[in-house]
């Protein structure tokens, strides 16, 4: 706490850390929120998708030495393939069933993929190097800051703008928004709704993969990393409002700040602050800051 008040540079670094963490989490949480917004599926397997992204990054960039960018692309492509298999093979049969069935299914995927990861990559903590050119620090005038974290802080808003334009400004985006409101009517207008569903699931899951790949140099790939991230993502999307892109963006930033400053003000209490915030939002505005109250009988 004293450090924050006495050293503006220290406080400034904490601000950057908050943004960097928030933006890395945004990439992952945006996928979760997008999938819920359109498919109405709460995908608990999103965390394990993230973990697979990190492991794929390890294999491609570290093991096979094919480079960092290839690793990110491979993680996105790998998760896209997994998403198609999971959506077409499993989820598509559950859309008209109750939410509990979907939840149980996503839990099953968590367990299966979690064990699969242990079989493929073992249980050791793996380490992924920073990419060339981003392993050093950037001179910001007042202080130096790790280039890699700086890149995370930039890439999040880029993905946010990309998603925003896709959903709000393209015809495909209009179709997905229509699908969230009335998929039956959309089908009666000649739109092949299942194609929209699988595409959304693919994009959302690929975001988890990309998020995992980008997090790999900071959070070394290890079993159980999926459990931490899924909780963080849920806190973010509930604060921001499930299904809202703006909400996820703002929620991720808020989470980043609360987590970082919380750990500085009262060390080891960062999770407590995050959950306190979650409780306050749930009590005052249960549909989140940018969400809309659910209509009855959706």
């Amino acid at each position, binding site marked *: 706490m004293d450090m924050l008040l006495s050293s503006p540079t220290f406080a400034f670094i904490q601000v950057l850390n908050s943004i960097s963490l928030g933006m890395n989490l945004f990439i992952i949480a945006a996928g979760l929120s997008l999938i819920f917004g359109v498919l109405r599926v709460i995908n608990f397997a999103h965390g394990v998708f993230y973990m697979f992204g990190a492991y794929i990054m390890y294999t491609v960039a570290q093991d096979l030495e094919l480079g960092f960018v290839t690793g990110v692309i491979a993680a996105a492509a790998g998760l896209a393939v997994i998403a198609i298999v999971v959506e077409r093979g499993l989820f598509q049969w559950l859309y008209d069933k109750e939410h509990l069935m979907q939840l149980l299914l996503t839990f099953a995927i968590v367990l299966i993929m979690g064990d699969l990861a242990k079989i493929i990559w073992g249980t050791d903590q793996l380490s992924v190097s920073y990419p060339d050119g981003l392993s050093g620090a950037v001179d910001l005038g007042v202080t130096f800051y790790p280039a890699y974290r700086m890149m995370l802080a930039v890439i999040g808003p880029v993905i946010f703008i990309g998603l925003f334009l896709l959903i709000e400004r393209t*015809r495909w985006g*209009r*179709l997905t*928004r*229509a699908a969230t*409101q*009335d998929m*039956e*009517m*959309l*089908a*009666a*207008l*000649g*739109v*092949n*709704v299942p194609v929209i569903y699988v595409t959304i699931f693919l994009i959302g899951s690929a975001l988890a993969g990309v998020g995992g790949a980008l997090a790999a140099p900071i959070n070394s790939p290890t079993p159980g990393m999926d459990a931490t991230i899924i909780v963080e993502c849920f806190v973010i999307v509930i604060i921001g409002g499930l299904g809202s892109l703006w909400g996820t963006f703002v929620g991720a930033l808020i989470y980043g700040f609360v987590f970082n400053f919380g750990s500085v003000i009262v060390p080891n209490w960062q999770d407590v602050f995050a959950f306190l915030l979650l409780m306050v939002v749930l009590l005052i505005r249960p549909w989140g800051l940018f969400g809309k109250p659910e209509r009855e009988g959706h």
Partner: protein
Amino acid sequence: MPQLEVQSIHTSYGLSQVLFGISFDVEPGQVISLIGRNGVGKTTTMRSIIGLTPAKQGKIIFEGTDITNLAAYKISRLGVGFVPEERRIFPQLSVWENLDIARRASRDGKGWDEERVFALFPDLRDIQSRPGGVLSGGQQQMLTIARSLMNNPSLLLLDEPSEGLAPKVVEDLRDQIKLLKDSGLSIVLAEQNLSFVMYLSDKCHILEKGEVKFTGTPDDLRAKPEILEQYLTL
């Protein structure tokens, strides 16, 4: 050859059967009406044709293709437009967005687009950016028909278009649907408003408990008030 042939269809929602062998034909350019009280199976007949509640028995042939068990989006793409009773505007999409998502070029390239749709429903032009959810009943009805037209159908299923609208709005709507008929569009019209039906229809089918009980022209119906008495009064 009829454009649409509905051949003795039986349709159920789960265990409850609603249609018990409905049959009728639509010739190109005709307006065919399904009339009857609430719950006699008019909407279910529409939903069976568009494929949202497929028939369990019987056959539906559209322009020579058996569409009985096709997915709704495929039936729509063949040229069947559906205007549901509840209108089902996408509430969070703007009027223009509601139209845009239904856009499909016509086969001859001379079909419906925004300009033609706005010429038919001028009120929609001024409210293009308004969210669908805040429109009045009349505006919603115009939009739901306009949206179907953007699909460039050759057959339109119109489910109770006049329901809940003010008399003046109903009159305008009737004239607009007449223009659609005159443009050569075939229409299956489910309606309870008899003057609306009589004005537009070439042939009427009276439904009762999921069956066709009477078929005739509007003149036949006028000549038999006892039929109307039996099946249409509450």
